[in-house]
C-alpha cells in the first residue's frame, strides 16, 4: 500500500476507525496488556518494585514448577478430567441429536428438547450446591447407594474415587441438551435425496445412519472436536473450586485451581503466572496440532 491509498482510506473511513476506538481500547486493556503482563512469570514480584522494577529471575519459576511435586499431579488431573469429559461429554450430545432426530411426533420432540436445555441455564453454584446436598450424609443420592449396598452413609464428596465421575457426569447433565442443538442443525442440513438413493440401493436404517447421516454431520463434529482438543488443558476451574476439598485435592487439583490458590489466595504472583502461561502455551500448541491433523486427514479445519 502506498501513501496515496493510506490517505484515501483515512479520508473515506476515518469515522469507522473512530467508532472502533472503544472496542480497540477494551481489547488493549483487558486482553493485550495482560499478555504483556505474563512477563510477571519471569520476575520475583514484590509490591515495592511493582511490575516494572521487580527482580528479573528468568526461567526460575518454570524450573521450580517442572521440578516440583505438583507438576505431575496437576498435569495428570487436568488432562484426565478433560479427557474423561471429552470421551463422555463429546459424543453424548451427538447421540442425543441422532435419537431426537428419529422422533416422529414434533410436539413430543419439542418438549424433550426444551426440558433437556434446562440444566444449561442453571448456575454452577446451584448445580454444585445440589451435588453437595445429594452426595452428603443422608443425601438423596447417598441414600440410594446405601440402599443398594454400594456405599456407606457419609459425605461422598470427601472420597477420592467419586470426584472424577461426579465432575464429568454433572457436566453431561448440564451440557447434553444444549450441546445437541448444533448437531440437530447439522442433521437437518443433510440432503434427503441421499437417503432416498441409499434406500433404493437396499441400505437398512443402520447402514443409512453409517453411510449418509454420519458423513453428513462429520464437518460439524470435527470442528467441535478441534475446539475441544484446544481446551484439553483447561477444565472448569470455577466448578472444581466449588466441589473439591482437602480430602480430594490429590485427584481434584488442576492447573487452574492451583493458579487461583497460589496466585490470588496466597499472593504468589510470579510463580502462578508462570504456571498459567505454561498452561495457555500447551493449549495453543494442542489447538494448532489438532487443526493441522484435521486439515491433513479430513480436509476440515478451523483456520
Amino acid at each position, binding site marked *: 500500500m502506498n501513501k496515496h491509498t493510506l490517505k484515501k482510506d483515512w479520508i473515506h*473511513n476515518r469515522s*469507522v476507525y473512530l*467508532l472502533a476506538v472503544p472496542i480497540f481500547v477494551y481489547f488493549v486493556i483487558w486482553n493485550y*496488556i495482560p499478555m504483556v503482563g*505474563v512477563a510477571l512469570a519471569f520476575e520475583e514480584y514484590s509490591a515495592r518494585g511493582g511490575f516494572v522494577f521487580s527482580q528479573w529471575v528468568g526461567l526460575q519459576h518454570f524450573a521450580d514448577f517442572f521440578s516440583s511435586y505438583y507438576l505431575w499431579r496437576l498435569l495428570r488431573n487436568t488432562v484426565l478430567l478433560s479427557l474423561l469429559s471429552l470421551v463422555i461429554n463429546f459424543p453424548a450430545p451427538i447421540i442425543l441429536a441422532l435419537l431426537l432426530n428419529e422422533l416422529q411426533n414434533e410436539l413430543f420432540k419439542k418438549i424433550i428438547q426444551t426440558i433437556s436445555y434446562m440444566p444449561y441455564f*442453571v448456575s*454452577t453454584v446451584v448445580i454444585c450446591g445440589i451435588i453437595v446436598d445429594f452426595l452428603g450424609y443422608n443425601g438423596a443420592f447417598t*441414600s440410594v447407594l446405601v440402599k443398594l449396598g454400594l456405599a456407606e452413609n457419609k459425605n461422598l464428596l470427601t472420597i477420592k474415587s467419586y470426584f472424577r465421575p461426579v465432575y464429568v457426569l454433572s457436566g453431561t447433565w448440564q451440557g447434553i*441438551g444444549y450441546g445437541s442443538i448444533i448437531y440437530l442443525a447439522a442433521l437437518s442440513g443433510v440432503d434427503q435425496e441421499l437417503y432416498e438413493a441409499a434406500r433404493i440401493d437396499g441400505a437398512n436404517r443402520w447402514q443409512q445412519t453409517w453411510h449418509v447421516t454420519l458423513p453428513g454431520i462429520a464437518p460439524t463434529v470435527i470442528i467441535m472436536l478441534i475446539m475441544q482438543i484446544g481446551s484439553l488443558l483447561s477444565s472448569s476451574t470455577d466448578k472444581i473450586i466449588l466441589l473439591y476439598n482437602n480430602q480430594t485435592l490429590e485427584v481434584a487439583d488442576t492447573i487452574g485451581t492451583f493458579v487461583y490458590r497460589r496466585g490470588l489466595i496466597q499472593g504468589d504472583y510470579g510463580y502462578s503466572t508462570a504456571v*498459567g502461561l505454561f498452561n495457555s502455551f500447551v493449549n495453543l500448541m494442542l489447538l494448532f496440532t489438532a487443526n493441522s491433523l484435521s486439515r491433513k486427514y479430513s480436509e476440515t479445519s478451523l483456520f
Partner: protein
Amino acid sequence: MKIKESPSRIIFRIVNVIIMILLAFVCLAPLLHVFFASISDPILLTQYKGGIILWPLYDATHPITGMGYTFVLGNAQLIRGYANTFYYVAAGAILSVLLCSLGGYCVSRRNTLWMRYLTLMMTFTMFFGGGMIPTYMVNKWLGIVNTRWVMVLMGLVSVFNIIIVRTAFQAIPASLEESAQLDGAGHMTILFRITFPLAKATIAVITLFYAVGKWNDYFTAAIYLLDRKLYPLQLILREIIVQDSGQNVFDAGESANNFSQYKKLLNYSTVIFATLPILCVYPFVQKYFVKGVMIGSIKG
C-alpha cells in the same frame, strides 16, 4: 403411500421414546427434589433419608409449609444480592450490546484497510490470553478491584458475540447502506437506524447470551469482591448452599440451635428463590439461544 414398518423398527421407536422420557426425568429430577423439599416440613426433612423427594414430606402434625420462603424473602442479604445481580446484569447488558454491535459494525465494513487487523487482533484473544493473575494486576492498577466497575467491565466484550453480530450485519444488503450514505447518513445513523433494527433478532441473541452468563457467574465476584455489600446473588448462594455457612446470612433472630433445624429447608428455598426467574424465562427465550448457536457455528 405409507410404507409398512418392520418389527425391529417399531421396537426401536418404543425404546427411543422410553430413553427420551428417562432423559427428561433425569434432567428434571434434581430440581423437582429441591422444589418439593422446599415446601416440606423442616423436621421431617431433617430426618429424611429416603432418596429423591418427588412429593412434599408432611403428615397430620407436620403440614406443608411456606416458612422457608418467608425467611428467604425477609432476608436483607439475599434481597441485596438480587438487587446487585440485577444492577450488574442490566448495566453490563446495555454496555455489552452497545460495544459488541459497534465492534461488529466496524469489522463488517468492507473496503477498509485496517479493519481486518482488528478482526485478527480480536480472534487471537480467543486462543491466547494473559491469564488470571496478569488480568487481576491490570484491574488492580486501574483501581477497580472491589468496586461495582469490575463486575460490569469484566467479560463485557466477547469475541464470539462480535462475530455473531458481524455475520448478521454482513447479511444486510450493501445497497441499503449505500443509498443511505448517498442521502447523507453518517455511520452512527446507519448503525442505529438501519443495521440495528434489521438485526434485532441477533441483538436479542447476544443480549441473552450475556445476561444468562452474567446472572450465573460467581467466579468474577469471588476473585474481585471483598465487600459483602457488593456481592451478587451467586456469591451469597455459594456461602449458603456450597460452603455450608448459611448462618452468616440467616443470623437475625435465629439461635444456633434453631438454625440447624431449619438449615435444609432454607437451603432448598434459597435455591428455588435464586433459580426460579431463569427457569421461568428460558422456555421463552430458548429459540434465541438455538439461533445464536447456529450463527456462531458458521465458520467465519
